């Protein structure tokens, strides 16, 4: 089977994007950056795939307008998932593996600030039994955090340590929306937001877009000196219903990690929009203590919806390109309380 690598990555993350919900104005310069990095042009891209949400954009068919960012004619081989763009990357990876295409550009976009995100996401729940109660994302995460604390799986100090490390690392990330570590004690002294979550335990509402270029075999070697070869890519989903699962666990993350093979990773970019979710993921993925977690600052520094998962893969790939890691992992999550999880393991080869 042919080998596929991540060879290009561009991103934008911001607290409030002053532009259209389709983010075309963001996507055009991102594509230009990807062309610059890889030496590809629009004509070299065989397949395009995006991830976005109509509900975030407040309209039907929001991705239809985003296609404008590619350029008018000739027509393109193109698809779209109503998921984080990490799953668009999965579809593009499949397409390359079938041998139909050699290259793909994957992109995601979302303007979370256009509405009240935590309320919008209530519409992701069971419309018959859950949504009528309007439980919002932060409250659901609060229930999950409380379940973990009560069961002894983690404590508030462990959560604060995640935050302190993330926001300290975010100081070096020009795209971070929230940055600046302090100390565990200082963080724990801050007021509660949705008990037991403090504001810094919750990812900031973020707008943004991102793009990743995939290429097969020699096309990848021609695009970048040290391609981030995808050695494992898998995703799984758990039931949504909160009463039907142990919120302190994420079986789908464990399955995805097992299928992708995470034993040798040195760096892991985990998509954990709430501090305690990083603790769940580290346990489910069975990551060793010396694995460097979220050098970008992760989702606690910026969490653009439908893009943040793809960003994790891009950030992990960068560690392969620059030689700072031999094997790196990018993770994406979707749905309430870590319901759906994707793991992409990449490696450099000499």
């Amino acid at each position, binding site marked *: 089977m042919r080998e596929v690598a991540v060879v290009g990555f561009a991103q934008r993350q911001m607290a409030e994007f002053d532009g259209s919900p389709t983010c075309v104005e963001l996507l055009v310069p991102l594509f230009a950056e990807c062309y610059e990095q890889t030496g590809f042009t629009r004509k070299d891209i065989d397949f395009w795939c995006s991830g976005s949400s109509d509900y975030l954009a407040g309209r039907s068919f929001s991705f239809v307008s985003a296609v404008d960012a590619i350029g008018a004619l000739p027509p393109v081989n193109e698809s779209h998932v109503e*998921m984080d763009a990490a799953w668009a990357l999965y579809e593009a990876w499949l397409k390359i*593996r*079938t041998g139909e295409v050699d290259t793909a550009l994957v992109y995601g976009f979302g303007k979370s600030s256009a509405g009240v995100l935590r309320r919008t996401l209530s519409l992701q729940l069971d419309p018959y039994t859950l949504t009528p109660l309007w439980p919002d994302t932060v409250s659901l995460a609060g229930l999950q955090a409380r379940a973990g604390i009560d069961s002894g799986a983690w404590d508030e100090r462990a959560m604060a340590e995640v935050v302190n490390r993330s926001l300290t690392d975010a100081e070096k990330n020009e795209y971070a929306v929230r940055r600046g570590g302090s100390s565990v004690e200082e963080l724990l002294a801050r007021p509660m937001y949705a008990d037991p979550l403090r504001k810094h335990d919750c990812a900031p509402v973020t707008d943004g877009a991102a793009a990743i270029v995939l290429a097969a075999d020699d096309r990848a070697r021609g695009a970048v000196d040290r391609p981030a070869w995808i050695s494992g890519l898998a995703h799984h989903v*758990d039931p949504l219903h909160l009463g039907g699962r142990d919120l302190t666990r994420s079986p789908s993350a464990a399955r995805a990690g097992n299928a992708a093979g995470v034993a040798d990773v040195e760096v892991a970019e985990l998509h954990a929009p709430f501090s305690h979710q990083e603790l769940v993921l580290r346990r489910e993925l069975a990551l060793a203590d010396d694995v460097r977690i979220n050098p970008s600052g992760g989702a606690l520094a910026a969490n653009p919806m439908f893009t943040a998962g793809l960003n994790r893969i891009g950030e992990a790939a960068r560690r392969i390109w620059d030689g700072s890691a031999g094997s790196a992992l990018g993770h994406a999550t979707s749905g309430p309380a870590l319901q759906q999880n994707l793991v992409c393991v990449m490696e450099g080869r000499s």
Partner: protein
Amino acid sequence: MGKVPAAVVGVGQTHHRAKREDVSIAGLCREAIDRALTDARMTFADIDAIVVGKAPDLFEGVMMPELFLAEALGAAGKPLLRVHTAGSVGGSTAIVAASLVQAGVHQRVLTVSFEKQSESNAMWALSVPMPFIMPVHAGAGGYFAPHVRSYIRRSGAPTHVGAIVAAKDRQNALRNPFAHLRNPDTTVDSVLASQMLWDPIRYDETCPSSDGACALVITDADTARAAESPAWIHGTVMRSEPTTAAERDQVNPQAGREAAAALWKQAGITNPLEEIDAAEIYVPFSWFEPMWLENLGFMPEGEGWRLAESGGTAMDGVLPVNCSGGVLSSNPIGASGMLRFAEAALQVRGQAGEHQVDGVRRALGHAYGGGSQFFAMWVVGDQPPSN
């Protein structure tokens, strides 16, 4: 390393109706899934992954409904993908499911697409005003009517050809137990006498708004060989172009022409009119049959209406088109494309029942969406692909 051959071994669909008040969204999907699994002689335990497709989430008012449906779809503990490519989504979803097998990742994939349009009003869900974006005011009919008028002017087609297509599809639907519209009295004259909605499109020349779902089981060659009459996938294609561009030809879009050319090449077809034995083409407004006959290369430009007018697309014609009754008789939007792909599979499997065409060896499934800008197609055959 080439593509792994894949085939459809199970097909299921719901009874399509204006309102399926007897089932939830999950129940609607399960009706199609259970039929597809029974057809494939499988259970959820045999399935490696699930691919879900539907049109805009605003149609049911649930954001990413596959998340709450995961358990009902048998997806818990498995990979679940959700595709959304506008009206072509049913076709695109089947293609993504096929690529899971063709890429060598899985052996047995279940795919389902649905729309429960009675949960909202599709026309208005499509008409949310957006700054700087051309509105679709009053839904798809108002958007497409100028394209139809342009087609009639360019081709010189007699103005009753649309009615011929509508009457044919409504009569075909009487042979399909799952079809939504069942109007035995529909004739060319009755269509012509129906209310003009968006000139030149009359009421009887438009698709209904339906609740419905469709499901397929797609497998690798080893599994397919053990199954009863698999429909082998000979080619799949997707093409997109932007909604607005000065040089766009919305009557005969370049994306559709190029998609068809790529599809015929993949499937080793040089003369589609002779080599395709039955076609399920996405025709939401009757005039799109002659328009797509040209766009797909079955007929030269400006000549598509002649095949429709002469009865060439009837059940006993040279190219039977939409023997199931087509989109004109059942239109659960998210599922409509997959229904075209599924009906093509039923024809090559010889399992289309009352609307079966004799001796179908290769059939086309076609879907389009957006402003005639997203295309998804496949060719299925009764024999494994030679390429």
